[in-house]
């Protein structure tokens, strides 16, 4: 049976680079990146929907690529540049994707929004004129139950246009 005593044995110190900040964390090795972001670093903007890699809600960027933080251990991303939703805006100035999501009503309950914003950012960082089908393909691993996806697609297209 798991006890607190057992858990002590598996603690480790890691240095993570999140949203440009270097943070040293002391944590059990088995904690997922999702848990570390939310519980140890107070970056609660990253959400969870399943913790099994099925819904895309916990998507963060690791060296610019979308990854499911619920399936990553911090040790796997030590030294990488991790971007969460908190790292999208420059101060109070929203990223063009965030601005487009606001204007077009692409966030309803908003729970899937952080993950979708980051997945969309990785699309726009690599393609300035993605087709609608390319956007659909890139975001297909992110579920949203509110919007029917329409406003999200429109918002990503609007942001792409503004970022060109």
């Amino acid at each position, binding site marked *: *049976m*798991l*006890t*607190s*005593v057992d*858990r002590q044995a598996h603690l480790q110190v890691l240095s993570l680079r999140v949203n440009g900040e270097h943070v040293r964390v002391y944590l059990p090795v088995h904690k997922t990146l999702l848990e570390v972001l*939310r*519980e140890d670093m*107070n*970056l*609660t*903007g*990253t*959400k*969870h*929907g*399943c913790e*099994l890699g*099925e*819904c895309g*809600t916990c998507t963060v960027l690791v060296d610019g690529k979308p990854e499911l933080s619920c399936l990553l251990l911090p040790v796997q991303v030590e030294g990488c540049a991790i971007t*969460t*939703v*908190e790292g*999208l*805006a420059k101060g109070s100035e*929203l990223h063009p994707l*965030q601005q487009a*999501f*606001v*204007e*077009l*009503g692409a*966030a*309803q*309950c*908003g*729970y*899937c*929004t*952080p993950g979708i*914003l980051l997945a969309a950012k990785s699309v726009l960082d690599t393609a300035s004129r993605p087709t609608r089908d390319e*956007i*659909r*393909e890139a*975001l*297909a*691993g*992110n*579920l*949203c*139950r*509110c*919007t*029917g*996806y*329409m*406003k*999200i*697609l429109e918002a990503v297209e609007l942001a792409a246009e503004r970022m060109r």
Partner: protein
Amino acid sequence: MSTNNQNGGFAVIGKPLPKVDAVSKVTGRAMYADDMLLPRTLHCRILRSPHPHARMVSVDTSAARRIPGVQAVITGADLPIKFGILPVTQDERALEHEKVRYVGDPIAAVAATEEEIAAAACDAIAVQYEVLDPVMSIDAALGKPKDERIQDYGGPNNIHKLIALEFGDVDAGFARAEHTREDVFFFQGNTHLPMEQHSAIATFVDEKVTLWSSTQVVHYVHRALAKVLELPMNRIRVIGAAHGGGFGGKTDPFAHEIVVAKLAMITGRPVKCTLTREEVFYAHRGRHPVLMWVRTGVTKDGRITAMHFRSALDGGAYGSYGVASTFYTGALQTVTYDIPAYRFEGCRVFTNKPPCGPKRGHGTPQPRFAIELHLEKIARELGIDPVEMKRRNFVKPMTRTVNWLRVTSCGLEECTERVMSASGFRTRTRRAGHGMGFAISSYLSGAGTAIYWNDMPHSEVQIKVDRGGVTAYCGAMDIGQGSDSVLAAIVAEELGLQPKDIRLVTADTDTTPIDLGSYSSRVTFMAGNAAIEAARKMRSMIVEAAASKMECDAGAVKVGAARIGDFTFEEASILAEARFGTLTSAGSYTPPKIAGPYKGSGVGPSPAYSYSACIVDLEAEARTGLLHVNKVWIAHDVGRAINPLLVEGQVEGSVYMGLGEALMEEQTFRKGLHKWPSMLEYKSPTFLDMPDVETFIVETVDPEGPYGAKEAGQGPLLPVIPAVSAAVFDALGVWIDEIPVTPEKVVEALRRKDKGELARYGPPGFPDIPYPPCTKVEPPPKELDRAAPASI
């Protein structure tokens, strides 16, 4: 998006403005319940039954209590008082201690310093069961149980509720008919699948409980907590956290909400519980599986003379909203089609599955699927175009239905016209495997009666103006649909400001006046009307103060663009505060008492009904049965779009959810276990499955809605599902009378067709159900039809 009304005279209403909380949501700053971490928070996990049906012999928590880090363990003996959302079915316990009725039934809970410790402690609780024979289907529930009944009320056998109502002379209606037809349909159950797992965190400080929860109904959670914890309501505060999606799935008071409050009281520390995704599937309260039988008589030209509708709902293990759900399977048929004589027999059974309850459309998508397809079949038998036949039967505005429901504004004709012409339905060229289907629907703009009987308002708003700052207080819970934005828009419109100028305090039982919650599509209509009343009272005080200073009549003071007459809003509010003292105003909304004079008339009445029409265009591949939806056209009569951007979002989201139900979503069980309690296995549409949607907002300006507004969040889901099945018939010539319309069913129907059998996939028949004799209700007198809305 296109709308039919030019917005005249409004500064805010009708404008596609961003939501007031949009920035907090796109920056990750919105605080959902699981994001809250108060100092010294303990984590709670709940032990749930592994058996679908069993008596509990003993529960031994001693080993769990010994695990370091465990702060408290509670069982059913600690929370013995029963609760339930409906007063007539108080049949749930936060933790069961006598008997479990579905896999997932909560029986014990642990609070520990870490979630993993709480989970390990749950594993260490030893429960002895005496396993009972589970009842897993409608047929099994109708028969004699092998061991014992699931619940000790209702009956015979595992029947929960029986309803039998007859409006007008149905036998005479059928006698008058020149053609009659019977059909049987089945709508499989499915679940809400909100992206956010349910979560709640409670504190107990200064002898008061505070609970933050991802709930749609802070008020009903408040009531349930008071009852089960045996505390007066004034010692409990329930606050709606930022909400990660409900769709009806967070409309009951839940075990975890009561459990964390109890554990906070015991430990003196904050306690949080967030359900795992698997637990969310078992918490459920989603779409009832419903078997339906319908018989309709028509004249040669397709006018309905009588309808007889039967439903059998697989309710799961507890009451939840089930009595209301059962009435809803029969209530709204008459709100779209003029049915001069109508008989409804409904039945809900208990089974050993997670309880079903309200999901978007609550009890009405199933009968809507049935009657839309049924009428489609009748039209084809008569050789009449189905759209034309439906149209001949459309209800008219300002009428009463045979079951006494009051119809005010009704945009069915215009909705139909919009989707017909935009989609080219009539002029399309036929090609193999291509199909288009048409359907209509209607939904409530709020239930006309409260869940528990009382004469108080259903929604209340207070406004405070203090040195130019405006704060609106309302119990309404924004679940992502935008109710906060609607409140801000209305208050801003009335005071000549912009939504960003309005501070909101919502969904907090300590600080806000009541709103019953985000269910039954009631918030815009009811909180909106309350907000108008409160804002107009505030406006008249400020205008009066300004007029006095300007030495003119109040009527001459212009309000708008952040000015009141000659003054800025801030200057005028200072004048008003100097004149009247503290500036507060209040408004409330009570729905008109329009229910018919019969028992059971409380389900169905609404101050106004929304209307939708939809066309689905799809490709159906005969070899594989695969369906690909090309496009959906949908027109929705929302009365007036207070914010067209949000209305369009609700319509598109409804289309999406309807397509999911029509094509893939199903909640089914094997040996008591959910077959696919994960987001991968429970299929829901992705970005790749979602077709383009063309939305038409139709504005009929309802006489009682706020600025004429009606609902938008649920109604547009309803026509999508039958339109999919109608399109499959159009494409392949086979009827799929069962939802979801999966490739297997399509292939099987085609196989039957090829063999010369009935080209259909669907339930073979409807069981014998011991419905009681019908209560006969006289239709409303004709003169009610022509009266003004307030009196009809």
